[in-house]
């Protein structure tokens, strides 16, 4: 008897079912039901192990035999554009221990809970100003350009010391860099353009320091010779991009999801700060905007979920699936702002878990209720099916969210 040839691995996709913009793609949901660790094929024909459940993802992401280093030949990139820039973009997000934490700790003091709490009044002020402008201009409005994007951009600019006047420029570069459809040359050019800009800025900060993170970076690491200007600028670029794209998409997509669930929306609008904090965790879980998975390479043989992953093989921890794992979250496809959701993996897990998570939390905890209280009659200005969801961007969300009130 001859063995049947192995079925080709299903292609990994970010395409969601029509009418279900908040749920993981049907293809990967089906894979989760089949096995905790299963083969998928990627855009370039290579294969990777897709890890589908919460327990195995946490174990792997904390495991030192798993590497985040995108220079490994087996590293599973998301597209040709990311393939082209991977060597160009090396920062601590793609480093392993001990190098990773040594670099990350340059910044962890800037993002402690205490430091983030101290930003509260400033963030509230920015929110009030943006909502005032929206109210004065009157409906309709695009929530993305009028509120969701400027809020985190203003906050991260102040924190880093990047002039906000340059936001059109850095938002454009960032958008090209995280678009999986960008031509490789375009992605490289955008990445380089932003890097050149930030190198000049870091050099300027070294000469004329202000009270901001990039000045501290320049003084402590550039002027001491510990880092090159290229390294400093790459770290600045990581913080600038991660600091605005993510929160912006959570604000827009979260608002959109709440508008589909009026009872949940009312809880966020009228809830105590504690209830709102819980709701933010639930929205992070339910929406998992980092929808392309945590991407890694095994550097030793690892047995997990009954599967042997060999050294050199690609691993993708699908955190959107983990966040819908019924073993951890009862009735996982229901948005329930009162559930205990903090074990979600929207910020990843392991040593790379989001550095800016406590900034994002505060921005979201303040943004949703302020928006919903200001415009009690808020509604979609276009049917849900016609909204431009960010299926092909490294960060999911909405390109545009037209609203009336």
């Amino acid at each position: 008897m001859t063995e049947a040839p192995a079925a080709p691995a299903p292609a990994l996709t970010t395409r969601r079912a029509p009418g279900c913009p908040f749920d993981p793609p049907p293809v990967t949901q089906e894979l989760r039901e089949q096995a905790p660790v299963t083969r998928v094929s990627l855009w370039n024909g290579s294969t990777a192990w897709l890890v589908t459940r919460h327990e195995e993802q946490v174990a792997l992401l904390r495991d030192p035999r798993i590497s985040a280093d995108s220079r490994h030949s087996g590293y599973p990139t998301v597209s040709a554009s990311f393939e082209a820039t991977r060597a160009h973009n090396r920062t601590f997000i793609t480093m392993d221990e001990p190098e990773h934490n040594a670099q990350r700790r340059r910044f962890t003091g800037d993002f402690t809970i205490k430091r983030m709490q101290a930003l509260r009044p400033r963030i509230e002020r920015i929110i009030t100003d943006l909502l005032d402008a929206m109210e004065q201009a009157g409906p309709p409005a695009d929530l993305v350009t009028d509120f969701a994007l400027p809020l985190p951009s203003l906050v991260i600019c102040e924190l880093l010391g990047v002039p906000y006047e340059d936001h059109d420029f850095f938002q454009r570069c960032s958008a090209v860099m995280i678009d999986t459809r960008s031509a490789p040359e375009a992605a490289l050019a955008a990445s380089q353009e932003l890097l050149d800009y930030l190198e000049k800025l870091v050099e300027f900060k070294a000469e004329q320091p202000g009270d901001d993170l990039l000045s501290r970076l320049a003084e402590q690491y550039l002027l001491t010779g510990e880092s090159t200007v290229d390294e400093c600028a790459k770290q600045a670029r990581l913080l600038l991009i991660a600091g605005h794209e993510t929160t912006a998409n959570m604000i827009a997509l979260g608002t959109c999801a709440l508008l589909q669930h009026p009872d949940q929306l009312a809880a966020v609008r009228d809830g105590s700060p504690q209830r709102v904090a819980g709701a933010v965790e639930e929205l992070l879980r339910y929406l998992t905007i980092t929808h392309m998975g945590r991407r890694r390479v095994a550097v030793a043989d690892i047995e997990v979920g009954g599967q042997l992953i060999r050294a050199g093989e690609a691993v993708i921890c699908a955190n959107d699936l983990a966040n819908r794992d019924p073993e951890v979250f009862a009735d996982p496809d229901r948005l329930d702002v009162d559930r205990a959701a903090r074990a979600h993996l929207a910020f990843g897990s392991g040593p790379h878990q989001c550095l800016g998570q406590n900034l994002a939390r505060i921005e979201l905890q303040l943004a949703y209720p302020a928006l919903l209280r200001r415009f009690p009659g808020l509604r979609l200005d276009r049917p849900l099916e016609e909204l431009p969801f960010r299926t092909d961007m490294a960060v999911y969300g909405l390109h545009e969210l037209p609203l009336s009130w």
Partner: protein
Amino acid sequence: MRITIDEDKCCGAGQCVLAAPEVFDQRDEDGVVVLLDAEPPAEQHAAVTEAAQICPAAAIALA
């Protein structure tokens, strides 16, 4: 309950402070965990257990 922490592993995510602020804090300079109470009273045990579970770096051990 006795808590031990591994400072080297800690990545300063602050999840422990969110879960159990009376037991954990973060060092100002680098966000590394500071243990305020290594043998917390019974009413803290649930929060500390949650902190140990969600700590991304597995830097909190309970005995």
